[in-house]
């Protein structure tokens, strides 16, 4: 039996925004240190509880197949062979406690055949 975890939606919403900002900052050359604030935000979520917290994972570029139940995918193009994740709409949010992780929210992605 799988364990399930219910995380307050507001945390997930906030993390999605952090993820969006992080994505945007990557393309930015700036002298300020926005990425530091992003890292801090992520750390705050990582340390929500004494020994646990939320982390997100950007699966861009990873292979996709139907065994990946941590992701909700749409497949672009006709072919569904050799799929690679090409767009990440929402990252995978995991709840981490000790060494154990649980999926708090699936990632939402678009996958395309690389062949």
């Amino acid at each position, binding site marked *: 039996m*799988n364990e399930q975890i219910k995380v307050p939606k507001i945390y997930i919403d906030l993390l999605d925004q952090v993820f969006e900002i992080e994505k945007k900052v990557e393309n930015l050359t700036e002298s300020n240190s926005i990425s530091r604030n992003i890292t801090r935000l992520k750390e705050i979520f990582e340390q929500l509880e004494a020994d646990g917290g939320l982390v997100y994972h950007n699966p861009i570029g990873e292979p996709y197949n*139907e*065994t*990946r139940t941590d992701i909700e995918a*749409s497949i*672009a*193009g006709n072919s569904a062979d050799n799929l690679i994740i090409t767009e990440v*709409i929402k990252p995978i949010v995991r709840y981490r406690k000790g060494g*154990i*992780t649980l999926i708090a929210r699936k990632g939402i992605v678009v996958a395309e055949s690389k062949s």
Partner: protein
Amino acid sequence: MENTINFGIDLGTTNSAIAKFVKGEVIVFNNPLDYGRATLPSVVCYQKDKIIVGSQAKVMFGKQKKDAFTQAFFKRKMGTSESFPIKSQNRSVTPIELSAQVLKELKTFVNTGDNLESVVITIPASFDLIQSNATKEAGYQAGFKQVVLLQEPIAASLAYANMKKSKELTDGQWLVYDFGGGTFDVALIKIKDGEMKVIDHEGNNFLGGADIDQMIVDKLVIPKINAQFSFENLEDEMKSASGKYNSKYYVLLSRAEEAKIRLSAVKSAEIVVDGFEDEEGNEVDFEITITRSEFNELIKSSVDGTIEMIKTILTRNSLGSKDIQFTLMVGGSTYIPYVRQRVEEILQIPANCEIDPTTAVAVGAAYYAATKQKEISKTDKQQKKTALSIKASYNKASKEKDELFAARVTGDTEGLFYKIVRQDGGFDSGLKKLSERISEDLPLVENAYNFFTLTVYDSLNNVVETDIEPIGINSGFGISGQPLPEDICLEVDDYDNPGETRLALIFQRNTILPTKRTLTFPINKTIVKGSEENDIRINILQGSHLALPEANKSIGFIGITGKNLKRDISKGSDIEITISLSESQDLTVAAYLNMADQEFKETFNPKERHTPVEMLKEQVEDLSEKLDEEIEQATEKEDYETASALSKLKREMDVVAEETESLTSDDVTDKRYQLEDKKRKIAQEIDSATKHKRIQKVKEHYFETKAECLKHLDDSGNDHERKTYNDIVSQEEAFMSTNSPIKIQEKSDELQSIIGQIRWRTPDFLTGIFNWLKGEQPKMNDQTQAKSLIDAGKFAVESQNWDRLREINFGLLDLLPRGAKEQITTKIGFGL
């Protein structure tokens, strides 16, 4: 053993669900692989070696994959002779087989340990006898021994009737308006003498929520992109599978769905369009705002289409709006306010939205199931237990992204299947044929323990017992990491003891290296750019965090003065200190001043020491003072033994002080390190000579507090407070034996807070505080408010309304001007 069926299944065109009646309530089972959802997409995907049902199959629908075949919407074909060819397997599957797969998958939702043999399955009102029989057959193929059918609109009505327990449905008629993910149905229900019947129905098999998302993109988003950017044929390039922007189309569909959901709650929603360029190379990155009225306009014709069908039903049955009690809203799309509103407005029949539209049909089916008797003879139930033994082999620790799992199965594997699922729900192998040897690549979540379960099923998806244990693989954890030999601490100002500093624990002894931590503190003094008057000190020490700061070894130090700053930084702004220790114990300290956006970073090698002479001088001075105090106290208490030991230390200290004083701040010799060592030794000795005294003191204080607390508890404590007290006392032995003054003090503080809680409830205390506050009135900030609070307080005392008096006391306390800020230490620049 229950005699009623109790299980109900909504076998939907787009989504299915399963529910159970338990002691008067219905629970809808959650999809174990789809968080927060209770539904299973009715889609089946056949692959070379496995069958996948649900969300993951839905992804594949309409796509070409080698050796794979995916089918959805097969419910529309129930009862026809049509079948779907699976080319790669040289066979075809019937809608019945596909439905059976969905039903089997739903069985895996049931986590109550029930053995499902009897079930109620819902069917659309439009199903004829052949279609109904086909549904029954699907149920039998899925392994149910008894299948009872129920019409969906009736199921929804039952869910409503059971929710309104007090109000029995009286004779009359109503409409069930079922607007789901992919289909629309409406039915006219009549209840007479307690018998519910579907009188008439209409429907559209190609209208649902997914169509609305598509309309948003096609009719609102794409035109707006075209208006701002130049594309030759954006819509085609997006919607054609081979189109240049096909992947963007799916991104937009997903965002459109999100906007649609938001629009049910708010007046406008944004859709972000970004991540590509137009044909002239301009970057597309903008937001489209969709207002609710735009959205309503968009779906108006579809909604009106559904209303037309209702009108047809009414006309056909010579009924007017007045003859209908209400329209019961079912299906996810009825969450849209406009749908509810429009239906109500045009038909002039109240819309009833009281039941959960996504699970109502399954819930109603379960209520119905609770009234139906099981009709299975016991002999049928005997099942042969398959004695299966599985021997697994895999690496228990791995740094790879996936790990090969291999197993050998002994026993009869004929007709059996297996499935491997990762416990966090992120991986599902799909249902595969069991053979003597199985091997599977298991994907791992980095830096975590990954647990997988392998479950064997028979052809009807009943679990077959095996002897396999859960599969546990540890990913990435440094098995080689060495433990930290001593605590690592940060010196901070001690806000409880003005003038003193204390140690904050950063890494506990035996933490596995490498490790890293970030702490944020508000700075407690202002530092002016260019000035050297004030400074911030980041001093990292190694040694027990319970000891005096002077007794530990400084292993890293960063001093920041105004000279290092780009701008002034004010008191209250944050300093962020990140401390990391590498596997070889290299210490890196980074201090970031938020206000100045400046970072100070240094790596300290344990072989080198950083001991600024100025700091050493100050520490020696402090230590001498402390020593004097201790000697005085010991003499006072006639503890001559300690006093003489301390006096001896004092003499040594004087020598060190003298030598330190003679050091120049840029002294290059080893002298400062030698002096620091001496100082540390002396500090450690002071620590041990006086520790006994300090512990004695905190212990005494603890027992006094404990006695006082007990007295208060006996007088007017509540159960919760008693429990807290007992919890503390039961740990007494443990924390006393640590001999740590800080630990014991902590417990005294906890007891103190219980006392506080109780006192704030006792009339004597509350009146006492109130009387004192009355005297303080002239000092208060807002005289009018103070007066009215005091008047209210007097009344509360008279009427003995203690809760009110407590509130008033708090209010009055707030009005008191803040006294001169308590003296705090600002030596370090931040504290605890």
